[in-house]
């Protein structure tokens, strides 16, 4: 059906001229070029027909009654914003002014009478070529926008939606393009700590989010498996270095909020200062960038370490991306860190501070176009108050008979009244279904964290499950005790004050670095029960032992005081295990953990 095809392909032209003769002449030429033509004899009528027919091309006379060509062109260009219907002025006014006015009014070209039909047709072809290009660009743009929106939805689903404690941690982000190069992550560790990351990839838009998925996956997986924050940062750095081109990298601030120690571990690589505010609006700590952005160097700089800060219940940790500091207003002034600090110090700390900061940035910038992604994370340090881990400490849990169980060399406590007391003989009567052992010695003690290795062995054999979370805590606490108090001979008395805790941590780092001798041997054996199973844990260290009896008794008295900074680990283990026994002056610990299906 050739007729219909012609109809679909044909384009529509609108000729606006008060001379009917001119209209007719132009119509004939246009039809020869394959256009269908409608006409109007004054500017106002031309605008009306433009609205009604949405033509592909407009030819416009200048001098007309009711509304002249300039005014009509202006109105048409106003209506057609976002789509290009080329508009050509046809005139006998051969002056510079006519030419300039035509362009000012929005005309795409001008054709001065008299002209030959060939010149006219050439002009139409040229202008149509531009129109076609414009349409192509527009279609591409729309397609790209659709793709980006889809990808953005997917990314958001992967990244933001699975964050931990979204009800308590305030996260605000505002992207400069559809895609944000900023990433915000919060993940719960097996031991109850929380890892938080605010990252800012170079630039913004799609190209800056290439690294987002590997970053998110690594951060979540390693946190879930129980790796320490520094180990995770090392891994992410190597990964992004391998993955991304040299000019793409990640400025990021990492925070680990400890659930039991009133402390925060932080690492800032290339972001503006991360802040710790006390609840009266004073800055307690300013965590400055101490390392080039992640993914710049093949490995983290030697001696890279987390800094530790002591915090109180109502303190707030605030992480920001440079989009906050560098947001500009109309006068090209930056929001700046001084304004930021003022806003926070004057904020109502019962509110989500991230939201308050964002409002203030918006007020400052007004309608100015946003140049960079903006992200703010607000972590209240009392995030754990409703957490199970904390609850354990507020319960009275010591049995009256407990003191009587103590003898000179060993201390065995049975905490759980639900289970029968199991003696060593009972355990031996059910043979282990598997055993596992790892002996770490010398410098490897400082560089290898055996707990994730042990956990992955356990889960590889027995499958994963919630019940291993407690075991993770038990192993970590016992291992850390063996390392800190056994091998490194650190005194936990240091940890009794917030400042001491920091000191303790620094001393620990120092001794770990120099460590060349000593060992810790971890033995696990797993025994099946009618439902569930029992894990026997034996950890022996090379140390001289530490005053565990003294310590344990002291701690047991102090446990009800929530502010006690040391001894909590052991008490926690006590709560989670079936039996817990220290021998050889504390250099050997045996524990058993039981779980029911």
């Amino acid at each position: 059906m050739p007729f219909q095809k012609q109809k679909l392909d044909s384009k529509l032209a609108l000729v606006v001229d008060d001379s009917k003769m001119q209209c007719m002449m132009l119509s004939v030429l246009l039809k020869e070029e394959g256009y269908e033509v409608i006409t109007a004899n004054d500017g106002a009528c031309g605008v009306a027909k433009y609205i009604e027919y949405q033509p592909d091309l407009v030819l416009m006379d200048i001098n007309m009654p009711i509304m002249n060509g300039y005014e009509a062109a202006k109105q048409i260009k106003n209506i057609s914003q976002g789509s290009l219907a080329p508009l050509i002025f046809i005139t006998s006014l051969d002056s510079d002014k006519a030419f300039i006015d035509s362009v000012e009014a929005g005309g795409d070209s001008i054709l001065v009478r008299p002209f030959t039909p060939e010149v006219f047709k050439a002009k139409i072809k040229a202008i149509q070529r531009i129109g076609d290009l414009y349409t192509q660009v527009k279609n591409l743009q729309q397609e790209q926008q659709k793709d980006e929106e889809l990808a953005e939805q997917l990314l958001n689903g992967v990244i933001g939606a699975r964050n931990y404690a979204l009800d308590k941690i305030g996260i605000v982000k505002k992207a400069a393009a559809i895609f944000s190069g900023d990433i915000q992550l919060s993940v719960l560790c097996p031991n109850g700590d929380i890892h938080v990351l605010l990252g800012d990839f170079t630039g913004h838009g799609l190209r800056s989010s290439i690294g987002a998925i590997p970053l998110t996956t690594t951060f979540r997986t390693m946190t879930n498996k129980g790796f320490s924050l520094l180990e995770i940062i090392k891994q992410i750095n190597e990964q992004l270095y391998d993955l991304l081109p040299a000019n793409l990298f990640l400025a990021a601030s990492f925070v680990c909020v400890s659930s039991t120690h009133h402390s925060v571990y932080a690492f800032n690589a290339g972001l503006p200062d991360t802040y710790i505010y006390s609840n009266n609006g004073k800055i307690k700590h300013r965590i400055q960038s101490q390392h080039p952005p992640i993914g710049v160097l093949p490995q983290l700089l030697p001696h890279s370490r987390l800094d530790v800060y002591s915090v109180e219940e109502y303190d707030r940790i605030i992480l920001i991306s440079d989009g906050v500091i560098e947001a500009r207003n109309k006068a090209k002034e930056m929001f700046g860190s001084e304004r930021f600090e003022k806003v926070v110090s004057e904020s109502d700390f019962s509110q989500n501070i991230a939201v308050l900061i964002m409002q203030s940035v918006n007020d400052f910038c007004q309608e100015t176009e946003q140049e960079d992604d903006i992200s703010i994370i607000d972590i209240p340090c009392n995030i754990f108050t409703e957490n199970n881990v904390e609850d354990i400490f507020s319960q009275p849990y010591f049995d009256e008979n407990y003191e009587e169980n103590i003898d000179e060399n060993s201390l065995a406590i049975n905490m759980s009244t639900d289970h029968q007391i199991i003696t060593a003989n009972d355990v031996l009567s059910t043979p282990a279904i598997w055993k596992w052992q790892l002996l770490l010695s010398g410098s490897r003690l400082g560089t290898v964290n055996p707990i994730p290795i042990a956990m992955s062995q356990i889960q590889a054999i027995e499958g994963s499950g919630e019940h291993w979370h407690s075991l993770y805590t038990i192993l970590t606490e016992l291992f850390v005790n063996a390392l800190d108090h056994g091998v490194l001979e650190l005194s936990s008395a240091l940890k009794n004050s917030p400042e001491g805790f920091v000191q303790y941590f620094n001393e620990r780092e120092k001794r770990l670095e120099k460590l060349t001798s000593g060992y810790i041997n971890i033995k696990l054996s797993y025994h099946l029960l009618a439902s569930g199973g029992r894990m026997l844990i034996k950890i022996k260290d090379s140390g001289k032992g530490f005053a565990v009896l003294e310590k344990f008794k002291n701690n047991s008295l102090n446990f009800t005081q929530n502010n006690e900074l040391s001894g909590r680990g052991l008490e926690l283990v006590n709560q989670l295990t079936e039996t817990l026994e220290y021998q050889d002056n504390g250099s050997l610990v045996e524990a058993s953990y039981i779980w029911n299906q």
Partner: protein
Amino acid sequence: MSIKQQISESNNQVIIAIENNFDFSLHQHFREAYSHCNTPKTDFILDLSHTEYMDSSALGMILLLKDHADNLGGQVIIKKPSDTVNKILEIAQFHRLVTIEK
């Protein structure tokens, strides 16, 4: 054009000066300012004394320049960054990667 480039053949130096804003829009020009200098042991002096602002993509461009210099066995020296620019270099801890002369 806000990039000025000056090559001194005798002492193997390429000076690149950036005026006003150092951002992604300069990407192409910036690359062209050094990519054809393939003389071994060339040092690249990046004069940022007239740079008012730089963004993270500029940091990325400096890293690309550093790669180029490393391959030639030369080095990148950033000269006289303005306060604003220096703050950004500081946050990114770039003094650990390249020489910054104030």
